[in-house]
């Protein structure tokens, strides 16, 4: 480190610095391209030749995609019916206070492709954090050790009032949706039941990997010493009496319910209209839906609905993506015109 000071008297300059390092240069970095930041580099700048055509291309591509999305979304058929029964005159108006079966009719146009039957809930916060962590993944994976000692995450739904362990524990399992539906088609005045298919409505990774039944045979033996969740009417090993492989933790309705929703208004797949009888989708006609109203949503102002929908390559009916792409595409094209005008008028000169 060199200090220089000027000596007025003698008109000399005296220099002082550290004698030790004068010849060693131990701290000097190597003179390579890497250490001296001289690596060969591509140096892009935002030039008009790239930005303006780029915006035009992106704009046109977005408009094209937006049109495709919008047209596809418009072609999807959706039928929704609210059946909460909170107002008189609506379907199931009498159900809200007592467990009755109620049915209502509706017309269905000719559908194209397979029809999916969803139940929808509103004002239902499955994304609440304490609710979301209230389950025991090890129990649901079939590890018997956790049947008798559920994890603390499940509290207060881990043990019942007699201090018996609950299987499956936790709030998510406890609040499982338990309305059941039956669909009838009115043909020549008679009601014919439309068969509904409940196989494979959950994700294959949930069914095969994430959830496992304990290996006990019969399954009932694994649940000795435990009790069913408080709000359930049937224990886990009797969820589907018609199909023995659809019991325990790999019951399809249970899996669909456990995959908790992100938003307070959601729909979950209940069944699909089986393709055996209606390979081309549901024919047009009058239908009636019979509902067994078990699930109470009145206390938290929730709403229930059924949704019939078919799907396409972009999923269910969602007009937002199509409209958003169209709007953004048009804005891109507009911006490219603006930038072209700015560039033509205010091109910054080469000379400083």
């Amino acid at each position: 480190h060199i200090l220089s000071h000027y000596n007025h008297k003698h008109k000399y300059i005296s220099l002082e610095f550290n004698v030790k390092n004068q010849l060693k240069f131990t701290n000097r970095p190597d003179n390579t391209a890497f250490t001296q930041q001289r690596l060969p580099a591509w140096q892009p700048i935002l030039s008009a030749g790239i930005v303006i055509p780029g915006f035009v291309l992106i704009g046109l591509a977005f408009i094209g995609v937006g049109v495709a999305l919008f047209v596809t979304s418009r072609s999807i058929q959706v039928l929704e019916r609210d059946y909460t029964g909170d107002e008189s005159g609506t379907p199931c108006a009498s159900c809200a206070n007592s467990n009755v079966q109620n049915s209502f009719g509706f017309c269905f146009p000719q559908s194209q492709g397979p029809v999916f039957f969803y139940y929808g809930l509103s004002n239902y916060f499955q994304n609440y954090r304490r609710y979301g962590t209230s389950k025991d993944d090890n129990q649901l994976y079939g590890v018997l050790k956790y049947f008798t000692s559920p994890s603390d995450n499940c509290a207060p739904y881990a043990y019942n009032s007699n201090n018996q362990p609950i299987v499956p524990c936790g709030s998510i399992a406890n609040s499982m949706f338990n309305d059941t539906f039956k669909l009838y088609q009115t043909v020549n005045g008679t009601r014919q039941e439309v068969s509904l298919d409940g196989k494979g409505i959950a994700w294959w990774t949930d069914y095969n990997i994430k959830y496992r039944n304990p290996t006990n045979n019969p399954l009932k033996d694994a649940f000795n010493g435990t009790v069913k969740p408080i709000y359930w009417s049937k224990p886990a090993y009797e969820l589907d009496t018609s199909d023995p492989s659809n019991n325990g933790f790999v019951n399809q309705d249970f899996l669909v319910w456990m995959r908790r929703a992100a938003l307070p208004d959601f729909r979950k797949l209940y069944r699909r209209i089986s393709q055996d009888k209606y390979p081309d989708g549901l024919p047009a006609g009058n239908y009636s839906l019979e509902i067994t109203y078990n699930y109470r949503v009145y206390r938290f102002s929730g709403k229930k609905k059924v949704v019939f929908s078919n799907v396409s390559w972009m999923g269910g009916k969602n007009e937002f993506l199509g409209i958003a792409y169209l709007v953004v595409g048009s804005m891109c094209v507009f911006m490219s015109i603006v930038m072209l005008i700015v560039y033509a008028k205010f091109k910054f000169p080469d000379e400083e």
Partner: protein
Amino acid sequence: MTDYFIPRSAELSLCFSEPLFLQDVNDRWSLQHPQLYCPGQKNQYFNKKAFASCVMHSCYSSLILFFIPWAAMRDTVRDDGKDIANYQSFALLTQTCLLIVVFTQLCLDTYYWSAVNHFFVWGSIAAYFAITFTMYSNGMFYIFTSTFPFVGTARNSLNQPNVWLTIFLSSLLCILPVVAFRFILIQLRPTINDKVRYKMRKEVLPAPAPRRLLRRRSTRSGYAFSHSQGYGELITSQNFLMKRPLKRASLFPQTDSPIFQNQPQHYLDHQQIKKLTDSMNGGLSLLLKRRVAILVT
């Protein structure tokens, strides 16, 4: 929940590596255009206005990164009718949108793309997807069951076209305003950085710095002289601190130091220094001029 550290680690690896390999205009251009130092001295890029615009940009990006996935995922399902609007898929979608926006913004801010930059940028994106798929794989779930509950999420949601369209839309909606804004600013109010960068692309390197002029005329200021290699021994030997006065403003007396004899002695007088400062007008900064002036008097 436990997997928020994937995007953080990818971002951090990228953010910490980027500044290490930033390049700048080289020394010749810096000498040719000393106004390049003005923005730093005037705090042009780090002041309250810059901070406020940064905050506004962040707010806009945050709103886009949440509400576009929210609107796209409302009431929709997969193309086989199964669930896609679940908590885990929504989290993965938002996280991926965020990462892509961050990477694209970093690409925009990288002005010098050396091989190292390419490796870190593309490597980070690849690492993010590799880590995501690994964390959501069957193997990790079997080993650590309750730590990796997102098993299957990546496979079941990232194979949907509407998910990728949402990612594409939100990232472009965050990036395109920045590009348009920067382009228009370059046209309307180019900063010294933009001008120099533009010139660097258009022209070859300028004529070398005036130092070569010095050598031709065999004049070197004592300041420059004292910084060059080989004179340390001479200067530390204190031989030049002689008491006898000199007529000219000579900096080093004649001695018999062996190093001295290998290099020619050059001194500056008043006229030469004046010519030197005139020729350096606009080349060197005022600071250097003052130093040279000190040597004269």
